[in-house]
């Protein structure tokens, strides 16, 4: 199974995982991380220790937005571990797509597919075109 690590401000990561469980059903292998009360080195260390705990299992890292202390820690990880995809701008449809595709879509195509779903979910709602 491909693991997910979701890094956000406040309780967003935790709530994204909990909310996804209400939609998708229970699942394992997604780790929620908050930057709350953590120095940049402490946040980086927490993400790094989750990656190490996976013992070589593949993972995708999600972060709430580009820039900011969460993205900073994830970029640091990306520099150290170029094999781990880091996706900024995580939203609920993107996370659901990840859950749905992580065991079926080849790992090298997974980031592009979930980004596609995340982007596609952002639209001006028009009753005529739904």
């Amino acid at each position, binding site marked *: 199974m491909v693991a997910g690590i979701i890094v956000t*401000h406040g309780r967003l990561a935790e709530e994204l995982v909990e909310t996804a469980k209400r939609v998708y059903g229970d699942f394992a292998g997604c780790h929620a991380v908050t930057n709350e*009360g*953590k*120095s*940049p*080195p*402490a946040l980086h260390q927490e993400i790094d220790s989750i990656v190490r705990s996976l013992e070589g299992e593949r993972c995708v890292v999600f972060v709430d*937005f*580009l*820039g*900011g*202390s969460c*993205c*900073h820690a994830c*970029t640091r990880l990306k*520099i150290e571990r170029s094999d781990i995809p880091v996706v900024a701008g995580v939203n609920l449809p993107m996370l659901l797509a990840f859950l749905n595709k992580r065991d079926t879509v080849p790992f090298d195509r997974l980031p592009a597919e979930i980004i596609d779903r995340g982007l596609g979910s952002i639209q001006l709602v028009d009753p005529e075109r739904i």
Partner: protein
Amino acid sequence: MPVSLVRIDDRLIHGQVVLGWARVLKADRIVVANDRVAGNDWERRLYTASVPPQLAVSFLTIEDAARRGLEGHSVVLLFESVADLHRAFVAGAHFEEVNVGGLHYHEGAREVLPFVYLSEDDRRLLKDLIDRGVKLIARDIPGNPAVDLKPLLLHAGTRPSGGI
């Protein structure tokens, strides 16, 4: 160096700085004074990515920040640590007031406020700044109460009663 805000924050540029302080103070520039970031291309790019285009960003070494005049600008000047700010002060940058905005747990540090952890070295340097006439105000974002750090530094490790 007339600046709108001098701040110590271990996260440097992030949401509280851009959306909180720079927006409220109508700053036109954020200056990061940090030797590591000044010499690190990806960190500079990443910090710049979190700033809206109407806000300019500069990255200076501590020494350059202490020397360079920023007259005519409304500037938020950021330091990562107490030690960095103290170095700039000793090198000639004189601040009347410093905003202590975020120093999270680091080696040997104890909690003074939920967003301010200080080590013995931090305390010593901050007391030195107070002796040199600097006012130290702990405040994470503009909407929250300003806490004078001076009495908290004199009574080690205690929190203000009825404070933040």
